[in-house]
């Protein structure tokens, strides 16, 4: 009896020992190596992305000289300022309008490119992607020069139609329009390329079946193209919403937030307050308002990734 009771135990013990040994060697060989290979990445992300993100939370609770804790003082101060609400409004208008138009134009142009014979598509795609390739700081300079009120091209051209001169960057409404226009110009090619790639992956049979059922072009888009492209549309919209919400270059160079703060968005105002105005905590509090949109996007993207993980 005793023997019988002992034997399974000993077997178990040796098994555990063997398992531990193999675990140790595995650790030595694979996991440790893998961990060491990812260590630079982990360090980089922790020190230069995650730590500063939390540090900005801390900074936002300090006073201007960064010596005294003021709690929500900076936020209370912001909420009382008219400029802040102007910036909130403009950021939302800017991001939503620009993203909607970028997606629409990208979608439409992708269809046109998809329509032309395959031989010519490369050429068109190549030309249409140029705005995305030029560094935005450089191309925005070109736009600034195109918008120049007295010497330059747009007003000169419009004068033939007896329109203008328009103060493209001087008038509040036109300045908002210009900033959004440049953003659309820069961002639409990105949508175009992605939508074109996903258009090509829609099986031709679906359209044939729809045509046999007598679907017109609108029904083909609504019932075939859009459902097939749902994922990519959602992900590009989220992506672009984050990037556009956090945009800096275009507004900074084109209007620097002017006239009278009427084109400031969160990033440019944070720069104005934090770097130019020397109030780093207040600037940090301003830029923290970009966080909610980020968090929402993160939730959606995580859900998407998990879903795909389950499908695979």
């Amino acid at each position, binding site marked *: 009896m005793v023997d019988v009771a002992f034997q399974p135990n000993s077997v178990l013990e040796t098994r555990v020992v063997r398992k531990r040994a193999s675990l140790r060697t595995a650790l030595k060989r*694979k996991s440790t190596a*893998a961990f060491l*290979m*990812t260590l*630079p*990445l982990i360090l*980089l*992300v922790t020190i*230069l*992305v995650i*730590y*500063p*993100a939390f*540090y*900005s939370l801390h*900074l936002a609770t300090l006073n201007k000289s*960064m010596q005294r804790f003021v709690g929500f003082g900076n936020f209370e101060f912001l909420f009382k300022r008219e400029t802040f609400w102007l910036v909130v409004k403009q950021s939302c208008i800017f991001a939503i309008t620009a993203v909607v138009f970028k997606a629409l*134009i990208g979608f439409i*142009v992708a269809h046109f*490119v998809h*329509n*032309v014979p395959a031989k010519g598509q*490369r050429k068109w795609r190549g*030309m249409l*992607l*140029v705005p995305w*390739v*030029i*560094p935005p*700081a*450089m*191309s925005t*300079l*070109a736009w600034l*020069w*195109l918008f120049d009120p007295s*010497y330059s091209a747009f007003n*000169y*051209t419009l004068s033939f139609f007896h329109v203008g001169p328009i103060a493209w960057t001087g008038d509040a409404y036109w300045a908002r329009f210009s900033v959004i226009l440049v953003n659309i*110009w820069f961002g639409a090619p*990105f949508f175009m*390329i*992605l939508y074109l790639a*996903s258009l090509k992956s829609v099986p031709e049979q679906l359209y044939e079946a729809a045509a046999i059922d007598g679907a017109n072009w609108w029904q083909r888009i609504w019932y075939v193209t859009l459902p097939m492209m749902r994922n*990519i549309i959602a*992900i590009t919209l989220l*992506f672009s919403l984050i990037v556009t919400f956090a*945009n*800096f*270059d275009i507004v900074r160079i084109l209007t620097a937030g002017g006239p009278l703060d009427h084109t400031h968005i969160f*990033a440019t105002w*944070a720069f104005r307050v*934090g*770097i130019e105005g020397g109030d*780093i905590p207040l600037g940090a509090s301003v*830029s*923290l308002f970009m966080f909610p949109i*980020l968090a929402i996007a993160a939730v959606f*993207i995580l859900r998407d990734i998990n879903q795909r*993980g389950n499908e695979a």
Partner: protein
Amino acid sequence: MASTVMIDKAAPTRNPAYGSMSRDRAWALKWSYFFLTLFAIFSLVPPLYMLITSLKSSAEISAATNPWWVFHPTLSNYVGLLTSNQFLTFFRNSVLVSIFVVTITMLISVPAAFALSRMRFWGSATLATGVFLTYLIPDTLLFLPLFKMFAVFGDWTGIQLINRWYVLVVVYPTLTVPFCTWIMIGYFASIPKELDEAAIIDGASWLQTLTRIFIPVALPGIIAATIFAFTVSWAQFLYPLVFTTSTDQLVLPVGIITSLVKGDVFNWGQIMTGALLGAAPPLIIYAFLMDYYIAGLTAGATKG
């Protein structure tokens, strides 16, 4: 002849339908070309206008002539910029920063992507997702805390980072590494498992599997990631604007904007020339490696 007649007889009612369909196609094609031309003009006007202006003298720019045409082409703007020490310094700084950043990015992200896609370890899946999420944290959220961090770091250690070009080598990888790692994970995951199993059976170490198998097979992905890293580090505007101020430390985008604008005077000929020269390296790479460029673009988003 005979066969066409046969078809005519066999299906006389179908012919008009075919005719209208192909007529529809022809119309659709015509409209497509028309709108594509419009959009292409919209896309290409700013860069072309850069070129036009860069060929003008400042006298012609301020004269009331047709701005869309060059009447007296001159290369004086190019000569002026390419012989100015200041501009060459900007260019050198940009090149140095980009080379360092691309190297660091690839050294960090390729091994990390390999480990995350092939060598499963505790938390590796979470880490892969986390990497992607950090890519979404924008630079505009981080520049103020980073500015303060570097200032404090300078006080503590005496190593001055603010207002040195190499501070950009420290921060740019935060923009490039997460994305490059992410697309490399995608490329590595698409390599069949049998390939590295065969290598391991032949006695290759993990490092050898990476350098002998994965890197050669995933070369298109690596090129796409390299192009991405270069484009980002060449085009970044916010970080150099915040972290560097003295003219000998600036990179191209910031240098052109801060140094060529003197007071309220915009020397547009030189600014456009500088902008064009600044846009040239990414454009040239794009012209030759367009397919890799597009591959990187689509891989990043569709695999997200």
